């Protein structure tokens, strides 16, 4: 009996302490996450003079589903940017399932003229020292997407050089860069098809 009372008391104290820390840190965690996201978004959309600041205007899931924009391959979430009321750019979050070690998550920035403004890897589990050259801190490779579009680079060019494409492969790693290239290509194709509809949807917050 005494043991169970002491046990309950200790568990209660532990739960209360954890809940207090959780309540105390929640706001700060959200701020840190938002700051990290904004930082990454600024990198894929360097020209940041839009009607609403980063992270921009997120296309609501409901309207996307209603329009059947969101199949399972859709680059989501997608944030939209206007300049002086005109569609100016979008940032798509793309999950590529076929990395060497599972999902690679990318941010792809694209301007209204369908050109890539920047690509960054948000998360991946590729082999350190081999597949992680897709990170900017390891190499400039990810910048080779800048300013490309479906118009300037035909479909056959969206592959690593040793498969006849436009992009360098890393020493010893083909699967990782190939997966990233495919992810960027697919998101551009999706954007090409749906951009008009995406920007026609009402903004979630007034600018």
């Amino acid at each position: 009996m005494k043991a169970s009372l002491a046990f309950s008391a200790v568990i209660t104290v532990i739960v209360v302490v954890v809940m207090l820390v959780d309540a105390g840190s929640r706001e700060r965690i959200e701020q840190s996450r938002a700051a990290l996201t904004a930082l990454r978004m600024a990198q894929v959309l360097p020209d940041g003079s839009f009607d609403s600041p980063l992270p921009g205007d997120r296309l609501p899931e409901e309207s996307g589903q209603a329009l059947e924009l969101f199949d399972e391959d859709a680059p989501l979430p997608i944030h939209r940017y206007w300049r002086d009321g005109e569609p100016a750019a979008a940032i798509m979050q793309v999950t590529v399932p076929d990395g060497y070690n599972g999902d690679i998550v990318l941010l792809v920035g694209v301007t209204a003229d369908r050109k890539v403004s920047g690509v960054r890897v948000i998360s991946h589990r590729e082999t350190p020292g081999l597949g992680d050259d897709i990170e900017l801190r390891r190499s400039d490779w990810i910048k080779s997407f800048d300013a490309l579009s479906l118009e300037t680079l035909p479909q056959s060019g969206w592959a690593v050089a040793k498969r006849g494409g436009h992009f360098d492969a890393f020493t010893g790693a083909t699967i990782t860069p190939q997966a990233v290239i495919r992810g960027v290509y697919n998101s551009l194709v999706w954007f090409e098809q749906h951009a008009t509809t995406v920007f026609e949807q009402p903004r979630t917050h007034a600018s």
Partner: protein
Amino acid sequence: MKVSTQELIVDGLWRRNPALVQLLGLCPLLAVSSTAIDALALGLATLVTLLVSNLVVSLLRQWIAPAVRLPMQIAVIAGTVTVIELVTAAYLPALHDSLGIFLPLIVTNCLILARSEAFARHQSPAPAVIDGLATGSGFALTLLALGMLREVIGQGSLFAGAERLTGSHSAVAGIQVFSAEHGLILAALPPGAFILLGLLLAVCSPAYTSRRSSAARP
């Protein structure tokens, strides 16, 4: 049971180093040691967990009935790790991202329960804290050594990505010992972790064996 402070420190850091001698906590040791910074971060998180859980278990020792000591200790450890995880997410989000699932998994690091169970619950707070510090440092240093070895051999760099640990936003390239192209990729891969840990054990083992044989002498 009285143990001198000096003995506690030597024990934790070297004589019964959790990773090198007791071979405890090898899962994170092998999984998160691919770079020096990740290894250091997980080592520090484990050190803090061990320190806090040892202290709390020792403070509660009179109230812990032997029959429920395991659930109680696990609750203390899980609570400590949750707090550390929240604080890391709040102040070092990039590090939180890169440690991923291995941060919450510290709850199941057998090293921590081993020290609560075998030591802290019989001891007053002071030796429990010293033991937590010494054993935690022993683990963290081994993890760091393995992380440095794997990063240098595999990628030619040292402490790359240190900004994740300091919380600054500018990337730190670290020390580039030699070009990444000449790195031995095996070291960065999971088998490399096993091989290098094995080599580390082999290098340290003569020191341990000679101590054992001299101790065995009458």
